[in-house]
């Protein structure tokens, strides 16, 4: 048995896949590619595969991670080429490596996510003012956000430690801006980019128009070294 860790891209044609849709898609792709995927034991055997992160509907990404356990040895080039032959347009495996089965899971080794966001802003918003506003936001010692915990209760969480950087740039479309955000994983916890934008709106005067037309793209997903 052998564990393969692979990196893949998801682009616009398939950005509306839910996490479960994507799981199903990969399961079927493994079959079409005749991959010797290992199955779990028990009443309801399922293929032993997972993604480092669940992708939300609408997200595109240049760097997602997945893992799969194969019952036979397979070389990396074959894996990548056979999978890319069967994967639909919108998903593409960019790299893969073989690791020991005992190697820790990827979700435990997440380090940072770098996001590029295209979002509408209040008409008349000046880029320089916006940049200053974000600068003061980042200078705050604490940024509290309400979050629902597993028991359904609302708790307050300080999200400042999760934010490494936020920068804004002009967008070709009028009344839109590009936001580049680097967010950190601390003990497998993170904060969502939409929530950071909401929080900026709350702290300063609302400037981002957060609606379903927001485009969030994960440019990079960084893993801790030696993972």
């Amino acid at each position, binding site marked *: 048995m052998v564990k393969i860790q692979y990196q893949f891209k998801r682009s616009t044609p398939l950005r509306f*896949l839910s996490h479960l849709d994507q799981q199903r898609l990969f399961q079927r792709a493994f*079959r079409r590619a005749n991959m010797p995927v290992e199955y779990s034991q028990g009443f*309801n055997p399922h293929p032993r595969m997972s993604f480092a992160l669940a992708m939300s509907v609408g997200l595109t990404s240049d760097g997602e991670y997945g893992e799969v356990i194969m019952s036979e040895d397979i070389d990396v080039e074959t894996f990548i080429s056979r999978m890319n032959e*069967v994967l639909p347009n919108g998903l593409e495996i960019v790299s893969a490596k073989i690791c020991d089965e005992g190697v820790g899971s990827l979700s435990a080794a997440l380090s940072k996510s770098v996001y590029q966001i295209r979002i509408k802003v209040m008409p008349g918003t000046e880029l320089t003012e916006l940049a200053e506003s974000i600068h003061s936001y980042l200078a705050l010692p604490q940024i509290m956000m309400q979050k629902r915990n597993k028991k359904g209760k609302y708790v307050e969480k300080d999200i400042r430690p999760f934010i490494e950087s936020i920068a804004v740039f002009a967008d070709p479309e009028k009344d839109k801006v590009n936001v580049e955000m680097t967010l950190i994983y601390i003990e497998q916890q993170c904060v969502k980019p939409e929530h950071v934008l909401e929080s900026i709106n709350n702290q300063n005067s609302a400037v981002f128009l957060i609606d379903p037309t927001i485009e969030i793209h994960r440019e990079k997903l960084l893993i801790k070294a030696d993972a």
Partner: protein
Amino acid sequence: MNNYIEKNILPLVTKPITYLGNEVNAVHKIPSPEMIRFAFAFPDTYEVGMSHLGMKILYGLLNEEKDIWCERVFAPWVDMEEQLRLHDLPLYGLESMMPLNDYDFVGFTLQYEMSFSNILNMLELGKITLRSTQRKEAEPFVIAGGPCAYNPEPLSDFIDIFVIGEAEEVILKIMATHREWKKTGGNRQDFLKMAAAIEGVYVPAFYAVSYDEKSGVITAFTPLIEEAPATIRKQFIEDLDQAYFPDKIVVSYTETVHDRISYEIFRGCGRGCRFCQAGMIYRPTREKTVPTIQSKIKALIAATGYDEVSLSSLSTGDYSEIETLIKNLVCDAESGKVSISLPSLRIDSLSIEMLEEIQKVRKAGLTLAPEAGTQRMRDVINKGVTEENLMDTVKTAFEKGWGHVKLYFMIGLPGETLADIEGIADLGQKVVDEYYKIDRESRNKSLKVVLSASSFVPKPFTPFQWMGQNTPEEFKNKQRHLKASIKDRKISYSWHDSGVSFLEAVFARGDRRLGLVLEKAHQKGCRFDGWGEYFDLQKWTEAFAEAGIKPEFYALRNRDYDEILPWDFIDTGVTKKFLKAEAEKAVAAVTTPFCPENCSNCGIMEFKKGWKCNG
């Protein structure tokens, strides 16, 4: 339009990916002016329509032709419909996202009477003129087929061309005729006349129907032009084994009602259950061979990656080589971890040992359909299943560890009495008793017996096509009586009558006069009538009143044997004489045997010269 929808509308709706048409094995072609553009329209949601086998066959068949591009369109969910209307955007075919009214053909499959309002809604959203006689020259030809096309009349105001019977060959003839017609440069009427000459094609605009002023029954059904035949002969594929079946099918990204490969192993059914329209209209029985089935399923698994295959037919246990087939398929499937499922199993047709062979992994609930509670009623409807068959089956199932059993029944069958209703509860109780006879160690820890009783709707081309449906009051009474007769807590039973069965009965045996009702109901916003949360009886009642039509005339009335029925112009091969004889036998509770055992001369062998049933 595509980009606009993708960026601004899809992020706002549920299951946005079902509006894009970019699934694995979806067909994308580069359009050209000579190409025939065909939109296969399933009049319900994506999740429901993607499980429909007929669409998969015709989609593949049409796309094999270089100059035809067949795409799919489904009824948009209410949130998507709202967005389309808000932005004034037309309903479109999924693959190319072309507006529906730009297609050459929009083809609907008529699976269920309660989907008719969705048809009108989709035409309107597609910006296609509803009434066929008012359609402009450049508009698509609206074509329809499927089981409900055996009584096409309620939809005749809106459909240009009906296909009666199995469409695989006829549809290609229609396409060929279209190519010829384009060369002639003729108009719409010219094409319709050319199409009417194809056997199996019914063009309603070329016929007139007259009614008796007093009684309201049909007095005449008359062809208006010589190209229109007085009788339409249903079409069927003779050599099913050689018939086209695609090697690839579209794989949905989202969950659909049936997330698996559905492969047809035979068509038709010789059991002759008297309530069952499918058993009558799909005659004769034709099987595929074991090698064909095996190789096709292999190809489909390789092309899709699905891990479940379902063997589809009207009575899978009756397939002549079922044991061999199952053994072979389980063998093939084992290594790839593919599971085989067999829905539609008659209680008396398959041993539990066989069932176990396939469902090695999970013991899902066992579903059986006795259909009636007493032997007398089962004989009336010619469902030859005995109580002994049922008890043997559940006994073995319980011994093997099954704990969940669902039993399907119908209420409102001809000659039914309250004693027959009590029989349903009795059977449920007997099933519970069988469970308790098994010793505690072998049986499942818990037991659940679910009884389901639907309201019987008489259908055209069955022996019961002349009977009035039970009234809503009679149904309520019987359901209440059934509920009161159930004593054991292990038996669960629920029912609710929203009026859907009544409406289904109206449209199943309706005539052309219902077109106006349908139009009004659509104008009032009726759609998704098959979905409990959207069915609105009040709106329908208003529509009938405004159209001046009494629905009871269609649903509740007993017809005389010599009355002209709206569907009489169709010849299915099974004769009226046979149906009448069956209706009479039903009154006396006399059964008719399974046709391979003893031919009852239903007429199908005379229909097609040289055709021999069962070999």
